[in-house]
């Protein structure tokens, strides 16, 4: 058995915000009919969470599930549980048009914390980062610089960010540069 290593390999940066490798996370991309009862049932049994509303992220005891598009979810569980979860989905949805893939090793995941979080993200993304437009528990797929990312706030000064593994190092450096002390536009942080 090979030793799984994250793309960021434990990288950390501390500036306007704290940027940290979120460590190994089990992730399954699930595409199919989100309105189907069988899908809601298997998502619930894997994560404990209910089917999210459009753009929503639901978290429960065993994991989280994020709404990625009208026919796509990102299911997040403990890293060692991902293969079994994928198999469970494939089994539960057999005969139903769907696609389930374990993408755990194809992504890089960041933990971002700090009061200037919305200001730092706004430097690279056209997203409206006002808390009314992007409240806690809502995922936003967008770009950071020129790279596709998704992020969501888990509380007012904490967020998770996911990108493709191959650009993980670039996104880390991009964020670290944007988070240099003294470089905050103090737009969102002043409104808090």
């Amino acid at each position, binding site marked *: 058995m090979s030793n799984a290593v994250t793309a960021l390999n434990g990288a950390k940066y501390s500036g306007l915000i704290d940027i940290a490798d979120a460590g190994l996370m089990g992730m399954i991309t699930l595409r199919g009919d989100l309105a189907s009862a069988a899908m809601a049932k298997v998502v619930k049994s894997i994560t404990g969470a209910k089917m999210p509303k*459009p*753009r929503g992220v639901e978290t429960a005891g065993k994991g989280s599930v994020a709404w*990625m*598009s*009208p026919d*796509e979810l990102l299911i997040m569980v403990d890293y060692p549980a991902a293969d079994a979860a994928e198999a469970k989905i494939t089994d539960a949805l057999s005969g139903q048009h769907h696609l389930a893939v374990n993408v755990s090793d194809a992504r890089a995941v960041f933990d971002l914390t700090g009061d200037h979080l919305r200001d730092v993200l706004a430097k690279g993304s*056209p997203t*409206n980062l006002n808390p009314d437009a992007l409240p806690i528990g809502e995922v*936003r*797929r*967008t*770009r950071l610089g020129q790279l*596709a990312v998704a992020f969501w706030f888990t509380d007012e000064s904490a967020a998770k960010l996911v990108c493709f593994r191959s650009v993980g190092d670039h996104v880390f450096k991009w964020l670290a540069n944007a988070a240099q002390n003294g470089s905050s536009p103090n737009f969102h942080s002043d409104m808090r």
Partner: protein
Amino acid sequence: MLILTCPNCGIAADETELHADGQAHITRHGAGASDDDLETYLFMRNNPKGVHFERWRHVYGCGKWFHAARCTMTLEVFGTYPAQTLEPPKELVAKIKKKRPDWEGFVK
């Protein structure tokens, strides 16, 4: 700057999060079509100064296609609507007509 609301995910997406794919509702002539029809399909496009219907893809977001109606001169956005249609919704056409009485209407 152009901001279009993706009807698939509800996000008001910046132009830089989208991919433009030109004129909407063109008729796809394929194998067996006349040379003229094929030429029209491949090369002939409207280039209006004013109301235009276009295909866009929310490429940095949900990844889905949709349609948008906008003014090519002022960048005013009249509305967006799902991709699964052969022509713009009647309400949208009526809304544009009200704003731009001189507009000739939707022509395929």
